[in-house]
């Protein structure tokens, strides 16, 4: 029921009957979910994020990008998704945060026991899902501190805490600013306006530090960073991480993996997770490329 309403936009009317039938089966599965949770709880593991057979297409071109992604992330785990360009890594991240350019056509995503796909992007954020944008947009006329204060107060409101005044907020932001090794004037500048590539990435991590998250998705946080900036970003992320929250990073490079030490490494290929392993799989990828690794399934 819930699933069908979330995807009952006009385009789903054109779906063929078998698909709809399959769809209603999915709904069935989802209804059964509470039982699944109960089982999981019994074994001591409530997954933070449970993605089942997620399918999504680009709204404008109708092109299917995600073709059945399955992924489970438990609390405290660090996951990495690798894969060649165009395999759907970033699309997967964007679908999770509710990017309007994509439409979910099937499957389910359960985050902290709730149907994520039914939520508005801001509800997902307030629920504790954070994604760092690969190329964050500039917002002229809105200063960084104003933006951070708004976002932080929205989060506090959600947590039932009183909103902070400008002064209290400022001292809180200052503390977090040190975490990403940035100067104070960073706060006075307009959001991402005139920022270098490295500054934009640091700013994303600053936002993560300020807002906190149960699951942080870092989409190519390491691309375009020099060695020092990468170390700053990685050490900030390591400080933010606790046994209670989880990390899902998308990357092309080994260096950040060495710094953030993922417990699970996934290789994505053609809209699916083709293979899952640990850090040792990265050696194989570096040596032979993606083709043989994803084919090894």
């Amino acid at each position, binding site marked *: 029921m819930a699933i069908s309403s979330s995807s009952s936009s006009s385009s789903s009317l054109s779906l063929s009957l078998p698909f709809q039938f399959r769809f209603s089966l999915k709904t069935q599965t989802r209804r059964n979910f509470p039982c699944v949770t109960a089982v999981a709880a019994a074994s001591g593991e409530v997954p933070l994020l449970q993605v089942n057979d997620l399918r999504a297409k680009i709204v404008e071109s109708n092109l299917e990008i995600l073709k059945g992604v399955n992924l489970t992330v438990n609390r405290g785990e660090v996951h990495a998704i690798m894969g060649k360009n165009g395999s759907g890594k970033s699309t997967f991240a964007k679908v999770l945060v*509710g990017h309007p350019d994509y439409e979910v056509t099937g499957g389910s995503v359960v985050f902290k026991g709730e149907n994520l796909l039914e939520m508005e992007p801001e509800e997902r954020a307030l629920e504790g899902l954070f994604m760092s*944008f690969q190329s964050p947009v500039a917002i002229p006329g809105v200063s960084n501190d104003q933006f951070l204060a708004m*976002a932080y107060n929205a989060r506090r409101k959600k947590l039932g805490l009183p909103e902070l005044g400008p002064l209290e907020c400022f001292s809180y932001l200052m503390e977090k600013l040190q975490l990403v090794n940035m100067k104070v004037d960073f706060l006075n500048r307009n959001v991402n306006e005139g920022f270098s590539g490295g500054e934009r990435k640091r700013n994303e991590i600053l936002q993560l530090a300020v807002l906190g998250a149960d699951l942080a998705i870092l989409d190519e946080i390491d691309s375009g960073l020099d060695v020092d900036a990468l170390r700053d970003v990685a050490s900030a992320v390591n400080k933010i991480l606790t046994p209670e929250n989880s990390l899902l990073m998308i990357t092309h490079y080994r260096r950040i993996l060495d710094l953030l030490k993922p417990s699970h490494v996934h290789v994505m290929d053609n809209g699916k997770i083709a293979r899952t392993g640990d850090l040792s799989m990265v050696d194989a990828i570096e040596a032979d490329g993606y083709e043989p690794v994803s084919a090894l399934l």
Partner: protein
Amino acid sequence: MSGIALIPAPCNLLTASSSSSSKFQKTITTKTRVSLNNAISISSDPFVLELAEALEDSVPTPQPLHNLREASSESLLSSSWPSRRDEPFRFTDLSFLRSSQILPAPIPAPTPTITPFSTSQFPCHVSIVDGHFVSSLSEISEFPDGVYVGSLSNLNSNLNSIVAERVLELVCGLENGDLFWSINGMGAPDLTVVYVPEGCRLQTPVHLGYFSSQGSKDGSNALYLSNPRVLVVVEKGGEVDIVEEFSNDEENENECYWTNAALEVVIGEGGKVRHSYIQTQSPLAAHIKWTSVRQESSSTYELTEVSTGGKLGRHNLHIKQLGPETVTELSTLHLSVGNQTQDLHSSLVFDHPRGYSRQLHKCIVTHSQGQAVFDGNVKVNRYAQQTDAGQLTRSLLLEPRATVNVKPNLQIIADDVKCSHGAAISDLEQSQLLYFQARGIDSETARRVLIFAFGGEVIDKFPYSSIRDKVRSQIKSLLDPSSK
């Protein structure tokens, strides 16, 4: 779908106007015929005749303004009421003025019952009520010798004859003026003068507060017309800040009136004028404004305008260069939140080398019957080599059927110049909205912040924080009436 009309004429090497409308061509032919038959052309438009007559009877001609009035009445009598077929009014509907019974506003009592300005945070404050300088509501601070702020009639009685002569020599009938310029020249009961002598830099701004005390209720056909007129003269090396504020008396918040104002600015060599202009008149009012600036060599003119009021708001901004190396910066924001039109017709003429100009015009239309009009002309004539002129206009249309008509046009004859222009019309950026949402800020708040930030670029240019704060809170309450 929002209505969009964009007629850019990027690098028009011809002197002729860039319009291609056949209707416009027709108008030209008609005009030519009239001038051929030129039998001391009396307008055949009874509406204009009647208006001219009413103006003539309304106030006795102040002696020093006799010439201005003569010239204006002559040009008025040979003009007809502009229609949509006339290029400068192609997108601006004046029918609401035409269908009203226009009455010249009577002379206000010596101490009008106007709620005094809540904003007289400026030590030098001039009140102009229904076009009349009202000394009981004005405060003229101590100025250095030679500075004059006040009415022309007082200037004469002060026997400050050199300044008076200079002023009279500068009060002119502008050759490019339109019908409304002439109406002002004919109906102006007095002239408010700001005179800054050579080398004098005024530290405090001169605040001009304009009021209309006579208004009619909605539904009435009567429309009171006032014609305030101000002349600012800054001699060689002088500097002054002018703050013009056209606001609404709280007691006649929803009244109908027509303010037809004119401001002339003459800036001497190396002089500088920073001009702030805020228009928040009644949502039922008509506000037609002329700003005519003449810049001598190396002088600077900076304008920051925010216009939100009026059912019809029209600003005619003409800037003429009298010498080389002038600097002109124009930043304007027009906001239409109701059934209203905000119109800026600007014209910047370069006749001398090495002029510099930057123009930024922004419009926000948040109502399905709202409209914004922009015609921005920049003319770089033969001798204006090495001119650096930039123009950018951006419009936000936030409702279906909201309309903007923009016509940026550059006419370049000189061959060694740097000119740029750009026009963008859009709704808010989806990617920006998502960025807010992805950080937990709901889309409605995000929209509000983004719209406000769009206008903020212009508001930030006001040179005084008190004005910036006031305009910000006013824009905020217009964009989000519930926050009041």
